[in-house]
Each structure stands twice: as structure tokens, then as C-alpha cells.
């Protein structure tokens, strides 16, 4: 975060957007959506050996209401798609999605009638991690990439755009 300190006064000056991004990027609470073997790698990434909490993914939220990042680790069957959609809809803004592994990205080896061929066609995905399954380093790398993405975001500008659009639509 860029900031300026006023000499001797105990003041810090920064931009509001950068302050918001700083807060958001330092606490991306994950929602572990493990449906297959990628979920095991996700558990490993969360546990003490790799310790995803180092990067702010401190609290694993087991409710979609209290999380920021949906980590979709594993195969999504077509029967499961409405559940995934609903959980994504239940998450509070701002929200991001990481697709872990070949199955979540493209359907992987399961090119069959029962498997959704990638969750990107169902919910918006921010980061795709290849691998079958990816190693925990891959998941940590994706989290760091997501943090970079959050820091480059313009939340207030987006909100202002929404207000402007709403006003123009109301005219």
C-alpha cells in the first residue's frame, strides 16, 4: 500500500481504494468446496505444513455467508451445478472464485454425460489452477495471484459506475 506519513504528527495519508484493497487482500477467507481428490490437496495447503493462513486465508469459513474466496476443488457433476450456483449466490460481495484442478477448469478426464465441462460456464472464475491434482504450492500460488488481482482492483470506481448507471437509467 502506498502511503505518506506526515513527519512527527502521527498521520498517514493514502487513497481510500488502496486502503480497502489492503484490507480485502490481507484477509481472503476461503470457502473450501472440495468435491474430489483436489480437496485433499486443498486440505494439505490449509494445514500446518504449507499453512495458507500465512497469506491471510486465516479462517476457513464453512458457510458461504462469511467467506470471500470460493475455492472449488474437484469435479462438478451436472447434478451438482445448481448447488454450486446457489452457494455462489449466497456469498456476500465482494467475492472471488478459484477453480482448482483439471476437472474444475475443463472437466478433465471425465468427458462424459454426467460431468460439467468446466465451472467457468456456470459461475465467474478468477483464477484457474491446472494439474490433476495441483500440488499445494499451486494452490498457494493461485492465492497469491488472487491477492495481486484484488490489489489491482478499483472498488470505489466500480461502485461509482454503478451509481452513475442507475442515475442515468432513472432519467
Amino acid at each position, binding site marked *: 500500500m502506498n502511503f505518506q506519513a506526515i513527519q512527527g504528527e502521527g498521520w498517514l495519508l493514502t487513497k481510500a481504494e488502496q486502503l480497502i484493497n489492503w484490507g480485502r487482500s490481507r484477509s481472503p477467507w476461503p470457502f473450501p468446496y472440495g468435491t474430489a481428490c483436489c480437496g485433499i490437496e486443498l486440505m494439505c495447503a490449509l494445514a500446518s505444513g504449507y499453512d495458507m493462513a500465512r497469506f491471510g486465508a486465516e479462517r476457513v469459513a464453512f458457510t458461504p455467508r462469511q467467506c470471500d474466496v470460493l475455492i472449488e476443488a474437484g469435479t462438478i457433476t*451436472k*447434478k451438482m451445478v*445448481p448447488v454450486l450456483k*446457489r452457494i455462489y449466490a449466497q456469498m456476500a460481495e465482494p467475492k472471488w472464485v478459484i477453480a482448482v484442478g483439471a476437472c474444475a477448469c475443463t472437466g478433465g478426464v471425465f468427458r*462424459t454425460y*454426467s460431468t460439467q465441462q468446466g465451472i467457468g460456464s456456470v459461475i465467474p472464475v478468477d483464477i484457474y489452477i491446472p494439474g490433476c491434482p495441483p500440488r499445494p504450492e499451486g494452490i498457494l500460488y493461485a492465492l497469491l495471484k488472487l491477492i495481486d488481482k484484488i490489489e489491482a482492483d478499483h472498488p470505489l470506481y466500480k461502485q461509482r459506475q454503478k451509481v452513475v448507471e442507475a442515475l442515468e437509467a432513472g432519467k
Partner: protein
Amino acid sequence: MSLKERIKECLEEDLLELTEFRGDLCVEVPKNRVLEVMSKLKKEAGFDFLSDVFGVDNLDLYAAKAKKAKKKTGEEEEEEPKKKEPPPPRFEVMYLLLSLSTNERLQVKVRVPEDDMDVPSVTGIWRSATWPEREAFDMFGFRFKGHPNLRRLLMWDEFEDHPLRKDYPLEGKGEERHLNYDTV
């Protein structure tokens, strides 16, 4: 008395065919006698445990056999008019039975033609048949008569096809399940 002899004695005229492959016994029984045969096997032959119920689709097998037979006859002689046999039933339902006291296993085969998919349900004999029969209904489309709750087990309720049939494409026909807040 060996298992083979006991099965023969137990089933009598209901036994259509008895084959043995590497020590595994397989008996074929008529479809309309399934309930009687199964209760006899449970009470008299001691098969008190039903391991699994599943289906077989022989569509490709029969097509390949017919092709092979045609090739053979074409090379040798063609004048002799072949008498037309009715096509063999397309589907089979297999029951895997186990006797917990003697540790003997038995396969029971029932042939099911495509135009009559009704099969008596054995849920009244073994309660464990409920889910395997639901799966066989889901994947092949057998209608198990007398099943207490014959709904799909693996695919969603609105799904219309039976995906393990040989004429169903591997990648599906583009079915998708849609978000419905009443059922999710």
C-alpha cells in the same frame, strides 16, 4: 452335495441355464418366476444376503455376433434358407447372492426384452435391493414392479434418458440441470 447339485434340486424346472466359469455359478431363470425363485434361494439354499443388482445391455454383443454369423454363412453356402429366430432379449438383470453362513456365491440372470421392461422387485425378499434397483432403473430403465420408491438414484429427477444403455452417447445429449430453489 455340491452347490451345483443343490441349486439344481432347489430350482427344478425354473432353471433355464446353469453355467460355471472359473468356479462362479450363474443360473438363468424366467422373468415371471423371479419372486418364487428368489424366495426359494433365500429359504432353501441359504442365500441370505443380496450383494448387488445391476443391468447388462447386450446391444453391441448381439450385433457383432450377427455380423460374424453372416460372414461365415456367406463364405460357405447361401442357398439354404435360414429359419428366422426371434432376436434374443436385449437386457439382462443380474443378481449377486451370497450365503453368509457357507460363504457361497451365486449369480442369477434374468433376461429382459426391450419392449417389456417390467421386472418384479425383490425388495420384499431382501430390503437391501432398494438402492441397487433404483440405480438399475436409473441407468437402464427397468421398471421394478413393487418397488416402494422407484426414483432415480444417480441422475437428477428431470433427466429423461438411461445413460448406461449402449445406444446412449458417452458425452450425453446436452442435458443440463437447472437451478430450482424448491429441490436444491
